[in-house]
């Protein structure tokens, strides 16, 4: 597969790395694991198979071998040799065909899954790209114009032709509701912190990456502590640095941090973090851990009717 236009940030991403956070190895993996799973299912692949994650802008690819693809995400259009084709459906490709993927008008990341296997660097039981350390994926980096990713033809996925049921097609929006539970340091300094976090929507600032997102809105006062001993953080943890501007961690978040962890986005909602783009708005809503578990299990039950056994991360 040849990259004609790599766009802003296009990386190979699949399942996250697990079980290595004590070594400082973050999760990485698809920022929106639900869209990845839906795309992989269109080509008969397991939910965590490595696919192409495209961020915000348009991207163009050329295929040297026939294969089928599935595209899921906020991309405005998908064109094969200039002709519009549908998202959320298995599409087939002939050798030499050109694939244009449009920019995302709302939302942030689009996933291109292929029936052929993308050749990616394997480490620690995974193949996703971890950009900060230059590990995994395609030479540990984002794709550039002119890159050629070898496709393996030996392990073609089963031939399928699928179309995602309309009720399971994600609605890509710039307005998000993310449910949270209190973090370990939420109550330490001020009871008001979470109330204020959930009072009015926050906007995603320009400082947004796979590592984390600076949230613009009301500054939160009273929770700061300059001498908190570093402790574990996870994707979806909301930290409160001394500036009072909350910071939401993403899939590439480092494994430990020294800022108070005031809240945690629940696992059921965490895939939405991958669709937050600069300018998106987030309304945080507090819930309980019991309720969060019910929401997560209900979501899995709904998805498993189509995707089979699945988990989100």
């Amino acid at each position, binding site marked *: 597969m040849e990259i004609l236009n790599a766009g802003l940030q296009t990386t190979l991403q699949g399942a996250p790395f697990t079980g290595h956070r004590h070594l400082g190895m973050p999760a990485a993996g698809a920022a929106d694991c639900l869209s990845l799973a839906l795309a992989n299912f269109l080509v008969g692949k397991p939910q965590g198979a490595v696919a192409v994650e495209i961020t915000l802008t348009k991207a163009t690819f050329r295929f040297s071998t026939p294969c089928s693809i599935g595209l899921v995400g906020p991309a405005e259009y998908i064109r094969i040799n200039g002709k519009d084709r549908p998202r959320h459906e298995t599409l087939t490709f002939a050798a030499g065909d050109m694939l244009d993927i449009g920019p995302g008008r709302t939302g942030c990341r689009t996933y291109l899954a292929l029936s052929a296997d993308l050749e990616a660097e394997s480490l620690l039981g995974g193949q996703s790209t971890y950009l900060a350390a230059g590990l995994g994926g395609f030479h540990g980096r984002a794709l550039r114009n002119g890159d050629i990713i070898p496709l393996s033809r030996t392990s073609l996925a089963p031939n399928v032709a699928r179309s995602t049921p309309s009720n399971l097609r994600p609605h890509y929006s710039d307005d998000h509701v993310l449910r949270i539970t*209190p973090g370990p340091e939420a109550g330490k300094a001020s009871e008001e912190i979470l109330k204020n976090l959930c009072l009015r929507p926050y906007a995603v600032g320009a400082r947004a990456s796979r590592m984390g997102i600076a949230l613009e809105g009301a500054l939160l006062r009273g929770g700061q502590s300059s001498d908190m001993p570093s402790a574990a953080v996870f994707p979806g943890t909301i930290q409160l640095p001394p500036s009072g501007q909350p910071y939401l961690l993403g899939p590439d978040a480092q494994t*430990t941090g020294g800022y108070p962890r005031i809240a945690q986005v629940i696992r059921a909602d965490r895939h939405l973090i991958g669709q937050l783009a600069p300018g998106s708005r987030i309304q945080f809503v507090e819930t309980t851990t019991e309720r969060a578990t019910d929401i997560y299990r209900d979501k899995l039950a709904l998805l498993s009717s189509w995707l089979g056994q699945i988990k989100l991360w």
Partner: protein
Amino acid sequence: MAEPDPTIHICDDWIHIGLPDRKMVPAVQTALTAGDHWTEIVPGLDSIAVQFDPALISPDDAAESLRDRLAGKPPRLKESENIVVIPVCYEDNLAPDMKYVAEKLGIPPISVPSWHTAQAHRVAMLGFMPGFAYLESSEEIADIGRLVSPRQLVKAGSIGIIGRQSCIYSFDSPGGWPIIGRTPLRLFDPAKPRPALLSAGDTVRFESISRHAFDRLQQGQQQ
């Protein structure tokens, strides 16, 4: 002897365990490794967090299981006996902040290597990047602060120092620690069965090497 109990805080798929004594961290980490539910066990400086899959176990049941495990025999403070010797070149452009650190310490730059190698360091935890180690010195140390503006690029292997903490950068990355030397050793190698050179609890001894030895060792690492 009544040790205060660990405190726990439950999120929907992870639990924070605050420990009364930071020396307990490695022992508790070992005790938890035997459990079935944890997909991650992450030490902090005076805490540990465990992550679980809430489709398989509810947060309350996970916390229950955790309490059982911690209520058993209190993990003995068994210090790790692992001693790792880290060769460091303290010279020239590998030590861009040597002058700053020496001034803070009130000793000439040439004395900093012997001062640094004389201390025992304990690996407090790994974090920031894969294999990046936070070390604590056995000595109380003068107030060496963070750089006013962080560097865009700190080379892998660089040794940083802030107060009584030292650190070793595992990958090229931005960073704000004053740098006093560099090791040719690779801190993280995903191809190895134990990818990280250091583990929490290890004792580290720094050993001063020449630039020539540094270059030779670095070449050896790359082969």
